């Protein structure tokens, strides 16, 4: 495919068509002019002035240049005003459009594999197209394969894809779809189509005005017939102009789609990905949009249902042939059949759960607050494979976090402020807020202290179960800090912890996560060693004892939880349970020494820890935090821990 040539042709065509569109609007104005002026002339002739009717319309117009100007201005002004009114309605940024169509924002650091891939693909395409990374949305309620771009400048653009696209497209196909949308952003199609929509609306307003005039004539008795005729003429002209405008708008839109397909190939250099995405989308069928407002953005979609004349998108065969000239109708049909069979096979293993399940989960997270029910096998299984439930969990956590605490992937300053606010205010163990804020002000300036203060309310009222997710979602933004900034930030966090004097589990976890997550150099040593569990029995005892004590209500229960966990690791010789005073340094040393365990031993260790946690059937915030810290130090990846109730599917 000669994508530069194809782009040039599409650009030229749509420029011509835009002129045609302008001409169409002008023609409507002129014809209306003639109609209104004729009406005026006749009414003048029959009125008091008694002007002779012999002169032709042109001659009459020459005699009354002021009237002609005034009428033209009024008609033009009317269409213009209606168009402007509609355009201001469409003026909202892309994010607004996406949200109003039911889009859920995808953040850079999302834990869901599909959404992470989507965000990566969008960032890649932003690079290829040379535009800023737009906001990314998923339309959770749309099952078909589709996508759209919205917003009228690259700076406030948003890209949204349907859930169906996320689930059914392979990476390079998704890339093709996203690249197509980027072309709409880059080529200013949003602005163009906004103008066209505005003008089409202006023409429609003419038709509506004509109809109103007709209805008005029915009420007024006198001189009803001329007004009726005038109204009919205006309505007819407006309607014809409207259809012509719609027709041209659709034609322009089809040219912009060709342009977008060609640009998508320029960005991805992979026509096959886009071709397969088109076929796959067609094979899945044109599901009607669950959200009817979706029709509003029809011209910005990736694929649209077609009615021949007013189709906003070229026919499938034409688009596929532009990408791959060897394809004919028969081949296309067989490709569609194959794709359909492929999709049916996938249906037997549905990936996504019903998103309706997210809301209750989010509410549960927000309300329950102190602890969630947990079963050992679930936590342990989590350490291996994230299941569909986890995908929903990531979304649910975002729903549950108050807006003030949701970090944005672009703003590392805000992420720092939020992290500091969480440290200072989220843990009720800390009471010396003023002194800590003073430290922030001294180290990072008054502006930062102010931002921290700003988030204080939200952080203080955060349910304890959400502290950790709130911290974790800030990391992608924090990783954009340069090494020197990272170092300063870590030092600031550590100083804040010292300022308070009390050292909570949350502090400990935060410190571990930050020092590991923002490490400037990759750990020079091997993350996993060769030792077996027996070699590190003492250290295991320490870790289990600390975890058991933080999860249990009393000493007896703690001892039972301890035994429940460690017995599976060390069936014969194991250290007895003992309460460790000033746990942090001992625990820290023990963890460091456990790093030398084999990876399989670590897996067993996490299973054992899960048993200890689940001994009383509840996962408390300190338990979740300690487990996260342990996994961070041992370099074992751990997906979010799921509450038991929502994940029956995991238990066979």
């Amino acid at each position, binding site marked *: 495919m000669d994508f530069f040539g194809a782009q040039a042709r599409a650009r030229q065509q749509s420029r011509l068509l835009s002129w045609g569109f302008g001409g169409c609007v002008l023609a409507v104005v002129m014809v209306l002019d003639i109609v209104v002026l004729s009406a005026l002339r006749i009414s003048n002739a029959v009125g008091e002035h008694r002007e002779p009717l012999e002169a032709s319309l042109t001659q009459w117009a020459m005699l009354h240049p002021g009237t002609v100007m005034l009428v033209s201005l009024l008609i033009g002004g009317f269409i213009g005003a209606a168009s402007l009114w509609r355009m201001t309605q469409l003026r909202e940024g892309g994010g607004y459009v996406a949200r109003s169509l039911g889009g859920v924002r995808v953040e850079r650091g999302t834990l869901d594999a599909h959404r992470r*891939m989507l965000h990566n693909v969008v960032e890649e395409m932003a690079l290829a197209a040379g535009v800023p990374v737009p906001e990314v949305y998923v339309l959770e309620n749309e099952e078909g394969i589709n996508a759209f771009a919205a917003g009228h400048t690259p700076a406030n653009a948003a890209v949204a894809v349907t859930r169906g696209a996320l689930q059914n497209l392979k990476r390079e196909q998704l890339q093709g779809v996203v690249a197509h949308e980027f072309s709409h952003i880059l080529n200013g199609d949003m602005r163009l189509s906004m103008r066209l929509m505005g003008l089409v609306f202006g023409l429609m307003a003419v038709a509506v005005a004509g109809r109103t005039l007709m209805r008005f004539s029915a009420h007024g008795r006198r001189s009803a017939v001329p007004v009726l005729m005038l109204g009919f003429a205006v309505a007819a002209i407006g309607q014809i102009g409207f259809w012509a405008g719609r027709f041209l708008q659709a034609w322009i839109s089809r040219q912009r789609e060709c342009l977008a397909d060609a640009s998508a190939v320029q960005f991805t250099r992979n026509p096959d990905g886009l071709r397969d995405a088109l076929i796959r989308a067609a094979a899945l069928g044109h599901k009607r949009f669950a959200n009817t407002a979706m029709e509003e953005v029809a011209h910005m979609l990736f694929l649209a249902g077609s009615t021949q004349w007013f189709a906003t998108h070229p026919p499938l065969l034409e688009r596929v042939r532009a990408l791959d000239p060897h394809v004919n109708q028969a081949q296309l049909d067989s490709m569609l059949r194959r794709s359909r069979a492929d999709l049916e096979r996938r249906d037997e293993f549905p990936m996504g759960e019903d998103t309706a399940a997210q809301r209750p989960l989010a509410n549960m997270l927000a309300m329950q607050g102190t602890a969630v029910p947990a079963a050992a096998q679930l936590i342990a299984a989590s350490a291996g494979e994230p299941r569909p439930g986890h995908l929903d969990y990531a979304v649910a956590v975002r729903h549950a976090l108050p807006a003030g605490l949701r970090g944005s992937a672009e703003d590392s300053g805000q992420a720092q402020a939020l992290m500091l606010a969480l440290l200072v205010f989220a843990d009720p163990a800390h009471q010396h807020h003023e002194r800590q804020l003073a430290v922030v002000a001294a180290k990072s300036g008054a502006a930062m202290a102010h931002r921290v203060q700003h988030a204080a309310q939200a952080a203080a009222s955060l349910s304890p179960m959400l502290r950790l997710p709130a911290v974790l979602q800030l990391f992608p933004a924090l990783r954009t800090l340069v090494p020197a900034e990272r170092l300063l930030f870590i030092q600031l966090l550590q100083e804040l912890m010292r300022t308070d004097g009390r050292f909570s589990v949350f502090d400990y976890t935060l410190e571990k996560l930050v020092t590991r997550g923002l490490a400037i150099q990759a750990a020079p040593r091997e993350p996993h060693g060769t030792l077996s569990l027996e070699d590190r029995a003492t250290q295991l005892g320490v870790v289990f004892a600390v975890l058991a004590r933080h999860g249990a209500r009393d000493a007896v229960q703690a001892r039972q939880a301890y035994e429940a966990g460690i017995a599976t690791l060390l069936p014969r010789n194991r250290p007895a349970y003992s309460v460790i005073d000033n746990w942090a340094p001992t625990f820290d040393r023990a963890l460091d020494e456990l790093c030398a365990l084999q990876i399989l031993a670590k897996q067993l260790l996490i299973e054992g820890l899960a048993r200890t946690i689940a001994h009383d059937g509840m996962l408390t915030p300190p338990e979740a935090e300690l487990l996260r810290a342990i996994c961070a130090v041992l370099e074992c990846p751990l997906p979010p821990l799921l509450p038991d109730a929502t994940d029956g599917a995991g238990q066979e």
Partner: protein
Amino acid sequence: MALLIILALVIVLVLFGIGIYNRLVTARNGFKNAFAQIDVQLTRRYDLIPNLVETARGYLKHERETLENVIAARNSAFAGLKAMAQDPGSAAAAAQLSGAEAGLSGALGRLFAVMEAYPDLKASANMMQVSEELTSTENRVAFARQAFNDAVLSYNNSREVFPNSLVASWFNFEPAKMLETPPAEKREPPKVSFA
């Protein structure tokens, strides 16, 4: 009267020239920014690779050599980038960097091929994440280069067409050069052994 017409013509010409000049400057800044993007993406890749390889290490115990090759290639490419940063004009540094870069791409390509050979592993969620991040990193570097080349093409086009070429030569708009990937390294297929 004639004077006025000439004056008007001159003003139109000057305005026209200013327009061309501004377009050329925009195009030049466009490809310069695209070059900065490559730098950003390369650095990002160097930062990311050690972490990803560390994650992969737990799963690919028998592929120690492949992983070590990746790390070694990463280190030499990183050194190359540093040398390049110290002496941006040096042709030797540029050659060293592009060689090291190609080596890194090749090493990563072999890692992907190795991962293909373990279907179970590929299905593991963590490994899927690692491979997604690696794929994305590689794509970013490739797309940043491609965007740079596209920007260079459009700059050179607008520099060379008439009458822009006049303005370009008066104001010394140098032709820009595209980045090329060393063909030998790029074409080399990844080696997979099923011994």
